[in-house]
């Protein structure tokens, strides 16, 4: 059996949860088994995960607030109770806090941050993940009985294959929390970078934080999330959670628009998995053009407002 941990934020599922359930259902099919989903704490309409291929949804009550030890114990406990040998979760901030604990708890091989469905041969699973910050792929064989896989965001399309299913409560022994959550602060109404399908990013070519309107206007017109290069976050022109690249957030959106960014190797490392890359730069020799699908050689202060107008015109058709 495949067990998927579907995370809910404030009781609601986000795209990452639908992606992991889709992934779990497809993996189960390849293994000739079923996929069940696990939710932790209070979740609205948990049975809805059936639409993405879970044949059943389990819920374990956990106290409010995230503690990696409690969550890992709950997921490992469910895997043992249900005899699920393959466990799938998201490679997001929650997942990264849990995957290692879960693998250690189950003495399992783990593949963190995979990008595609596993190859199955007998009992063996081989999964592909990016390594060297997106500069290469590695095929990882998981050699143990229990197998833990965490899926990178935007790696597989969400697919609906069923309808809502029953939710059953499960109880497992849980340790007490060692971490006390004091406060959670999130920018409201914006798709977080790792989940965003459309991203508009600005670099030093913007010259100063007061000029960011050309980036945010374009992002608003597209419904995109904004990002930036590292020097821009270093001097606090933009918040540091917008910093993408090797030492920032690694992203793989459908569309990445980079304006006033030269395309240094460390920047490319975090964005070169994007499906389509558009580069706007006034320097035709900027290295970013080598990694781009579409290039515009020009002054971003003229090009971006023109692009924003063209997007608005396209959307009003």
């Amino acid at each position, binding site marked *: 059996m495949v067990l998927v941990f579907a995370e809910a934020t404030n009781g609601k599922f986000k795209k990452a949860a639908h992606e992991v359930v889709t992934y779990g259902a497809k993996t189960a099919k390849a293994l000739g088994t079923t996929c069940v989903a696990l939710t932790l704490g209070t979740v609205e309409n948990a049975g809805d995960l059936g639409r993405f291929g879970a044949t059943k949804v389990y819920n374990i009550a956990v106290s409010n607030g995230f503690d990696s030890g409690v969550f890992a114990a709950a997921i490992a406990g469910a895997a043992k109770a249900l005899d699920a040998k393959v466990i799938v979760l998201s490679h997001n901030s929650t997942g990264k806090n849990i995957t*290692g*604990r879960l*693998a250690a708890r189950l003495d399992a091989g783990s593949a*963190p941050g995979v990008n595609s469905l596993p190859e199955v041969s007998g009992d063996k699973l081989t999964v592909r993940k990016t*390594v060297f910050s997106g500069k290469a792929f*590695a095929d*990882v064989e998981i*050699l143990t009985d229990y197998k833990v896989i965490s899926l990178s965001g935007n790696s597989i399309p969400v697919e609906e294959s069923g309808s809502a299913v029953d939710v059953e409560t499960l109880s497992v022994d849980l340790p007490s929390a060692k971490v006390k959550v004091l406060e959670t602060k999130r920018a409201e109404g914006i798709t977080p970078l790792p989940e965003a399908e459309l991203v508009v990013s600005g670099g030093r070519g913007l010259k100063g934080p007061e000029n960011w309107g050309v980036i945010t206007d374009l992002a608003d017109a597209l419904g995109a999330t904004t990002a930036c290069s590292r020097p821009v976050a270093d001097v606090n022109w933009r918040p540091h959670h917008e910093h993408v690249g090797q030492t920032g957030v690694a992203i793989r959106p459908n569309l990445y628009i980079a304006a006033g960014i030269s395309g240094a190797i460390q920047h490319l490392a975090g964005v070169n998995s994007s499906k389509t890359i558009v580069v706007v730069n006034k320097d035709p020799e900027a290295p970013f053009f080598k990694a781009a699908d579409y290039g515009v050689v020009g002054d971003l202060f003229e090009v971006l407002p*023109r692009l924003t107008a063209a*997007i608005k015109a396209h959307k009003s058709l």
Partner: protein
Amino acid sequence: MKMLVCVSKTPETTTKIQLTADNSDLDRSGVNYIMNPYDEWYALVRALELKEASGGTVTIINVGPAENDAVIRKGLAIGADDAIRVNAEGGGSLYIAKQIAAQAAGYDLILFGKETIDYNGSEVGAMVAELLDMAYVGEASHLEMNGTTATVTRDIEGGVEVVEVSTPFALSAAKGMAEQRIPNMRGIMMAKRKPLNVIDPVEATATTSISSYELPPAKSAVKLVDPEDMTELVRLLHEEAKVI
């Protein structure tokens, strides 16, 4: 406070990745190695700041072969007091975590970088915490100690979460935690005399193995669009790339 900083050795960030002829490994000829930036800039420097503020010791640990000593000496030059190298190679994340856990008894705080820039796993810290039954805070961008209690800020999608933990605990450090320090001459000289204890690995088996590597497909040449004609770019994004 007794602090342990776990450091890894990775290819330098500008490395152009090439593979061996049979795709079984990275072609390591000519590759320069560094201390994993997250381990060095954030985990190690924050530990040193805490020691400077309220005393204690900072020990570095690396699991790897003798050629990793250069990276370990750099950590000592930046300011760590002593180092442990578990003399083992490969084995994967859980193997490495078990080696670290076997040496980590008695520390109040164990610091990791948020991930290594080679395998991008982000899991060894959480593994060690689980093996030692400790609290763990991943991708921490801020840490304040107040006696045995810590306030830690961790990065979450589109924001942060502030948590409270008590020692002993483990964390992985992200940008914001500290600022990079360049070792000075005195530090480099002193590092040569600081203890670097080499220890044999404990028994553990590999749980994963990498069967092959592949490079991403080469990008086809960029399509240039007239800067005056953004309607054309929108058309291409809609009809050709199908992303809007």
